[in-house]
């Protein structure tokens, strides 16, 4: 085999300029896909962190069975009692992969500064648990002022655009109004603890965060709408859903569990969009690579028709001719991919050192453009490019192998 590889390498080097252009085309195509994939990988990471930690969805959300369909119509019926809440938290925390399980409640209503009012959507959270869920996200978009705490139950956090709209800045007072679970209108005084940026322009003018017990007071209930569960590793999400569902049902709790991926529609849409983009880019590059390889190998075969005739006369079988050119194609793909990996690494390093800033759609603040280094993807791409280049070479090679030997030998 080595002798044929050696021959293939020498044949590639026969027309250096043409081979260089081909390798460059393959390399640039490789780098375009791998860099874009690295960017997409980073975006997936960012969206995942934003969903789990930024939006506070956690990894799993436990609701009473039927809450998704009918919870809005009959909230009290589809909320967990205090006893059930404690039971779920206890059962969930028995699992090693669970960092925490915390009750939450959502409130929608009207917030006013005494002059102007607007709607709000608030999450009632346990302050220390919410801090744990936020994790490093809190450093990315820190709160201006104080966070929620258990000492001042009526102290709330308000999203930046909503704060600006109502001029409710830190330490200012306001009033929130919402219907209780029994349908009566309730109103409570609030004091603004801090102002935060949700990171999403769609929620930045609506969102608030209340202390869980304050939210319960506003809704006049002791129940919890959901239990949010944070795991050590996001990759355990599906496995833990199955485990917890079985465990909770065995304990007599009729519930449904949704993952962060199901709850974050933004993530799902963005992921789908980026997947389509990646496939589109991959297809274009693939066509370019295949056409370049077909063209290069076609030219090489044309120039070496007489040589093919000689090899056939000496006893090389048709399959041998095809394999020889397929090997040349594969080597073009391999060396082109190596160039691609070098280009990828250089661009990746430059972006890492001097990250450009941009504001992605749906984000309220500019962020660094980061490209992840995904080694397994580089190997997959290398394998794909070698394979595609090889098949691209096979197209003209098969034609050459079938050519009449006498005609090949007489080719000038």
């Amino acid at each position: 085999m080595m002798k044929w590889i050696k021959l293939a390498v020498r044949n590639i080097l026969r027309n250096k300029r043409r081979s260089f252009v081909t390798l460059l085309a393959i390399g640039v195509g490789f780098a375009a896909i791998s860099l874009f994939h690295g960017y997409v990988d980073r975006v997936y990471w960012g969206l995942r962190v934003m969903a789990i930690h930024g939006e506070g969805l956690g990894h799993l959300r436990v609701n009473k069975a039927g809450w998704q369909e009918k919870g809005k119509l009959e909230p009290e019926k589809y909320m967990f009692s205090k006893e059930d809440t404690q039971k779920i938290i206890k059962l969930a925390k028995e699992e090693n992969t669970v960092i925490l399980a915390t009750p939450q409640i959502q409130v929608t209503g009207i917030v006013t500064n005494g002059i102007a009012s607007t709607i709000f959507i608030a999450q009632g959270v346990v302050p220390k648990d919410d801090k744990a869920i936020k994790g490093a996200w809190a450093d990315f978009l820190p709160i201006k002022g104080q966070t929620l705490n258990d000492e001042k139950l009526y102290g709330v956090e308000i999203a930046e655009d909503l704060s600006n709209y109502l001029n409710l800045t830190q330490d200012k007072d306001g009033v929130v109004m919402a219907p209780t679970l029994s349908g009566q209108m309730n109103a409570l005084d609030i004091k603004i603890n801090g102002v935060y940026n949700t990171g999403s322009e769609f929620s930045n003018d609506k969102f608030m965060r209340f202390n869980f017990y304050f939210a319960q007071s506003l809704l006049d209930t002791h129940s919890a709408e959901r239990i949010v569960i944070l795991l050590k590793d996001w990759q355990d999400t599906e496995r833990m859903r199955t485990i917890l569902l079985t465990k909770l049902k065995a304990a007599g709790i009729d519930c449904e569990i949704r993952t962060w991926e199901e709850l974050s529609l933004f993530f799902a849409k963005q992921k789908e969009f980026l997947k389509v983009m990646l496939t589109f880019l991959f297809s274009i590059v693939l066509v370019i690579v295949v056409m370049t390889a077909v063209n290069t190998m076609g030219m090489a075969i044309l120039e070496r028709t007489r040589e093919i005739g000689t090899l056939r006369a000496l006893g090389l079988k048709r399959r041998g001719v095809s394999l020889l050119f397929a090997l040349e194609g594969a080597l073009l793909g391999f060396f082109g991919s190596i160039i691609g990996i070098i280009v990828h690494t250089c661009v990746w390093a430059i972006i890492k050192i001097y990250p450009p800033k941009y504001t992605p759609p749906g984000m309220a603040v500019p962020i660094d453009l980061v490209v992840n280094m995904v080694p397994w993807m580089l190997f997959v791409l290398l394998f794909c490019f070698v394979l595609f280049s090889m098949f691209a070479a096979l197209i003209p090679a098969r034609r050459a192998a079938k050519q009449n030997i006498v005609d090949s030998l007489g080719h000038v």
Partner: protein
Amino acid sequence: MPLIEMKNVSKDYYLGETVVHALRGIDLQIDKKEFVAIWGPSGSGKTTLLNLISAIDEPTTGDLAIAGKDVRSLTDNQKSEHRNETIGFIFQGFNLVPVLSALENVMLPLQIKGASATEARKQALSRLEEVGIGDLINNRPAKMSGGQQQRVSIARALVNNPSLVIADEPTANLDSATAHMIIDLMRELNEKDNITFIFSTHDQRLLDRVKRLVRLEDGKIVNGGAKQ
């Protein structure tokens, strides 16, 4: 049993709607160890005849047997194996692979056969020594003269120990002195190793040295078809 046996062989080529009768009713027998020249004017069918004998082309009609094998009954792969094992080729334009050294070119038929690199190298070196260019084994064709390239070509033709060597105008691209050396070498190999040589030529220098002449005209053997 003759090495080559042709009975009423004809070969037609089709150029659009025109039929060119390259060979007509050829009857020819060539035995082992013969040193045969096929000669005749341009277009008389010399190369076509050699192509049929070397199993790189098929007759339109007639029977052709090489070493007792009916060539027309062989598959393409079997023909390839037959050429590799039985026939050595010497081309007018040498047809060496330009990216390979002299040694690698000579190793090629053995490597096609599947011989190990060590074995192929050993035999190729021996043949290169035999044709007198043992000191140029690492040179690529571009760095060799026409005579040297033809010697490499002869070494390549002989490396598989074929029973038959086919040479198409082997001295056409060579000067007189080199042509004489090549002729002497071929003659020597014919006598020493009992290899059958069949070649086409116009070259009078070569015709004077052969044991048997087969003259072709307009696709027919006009002289030398029957063994003398």
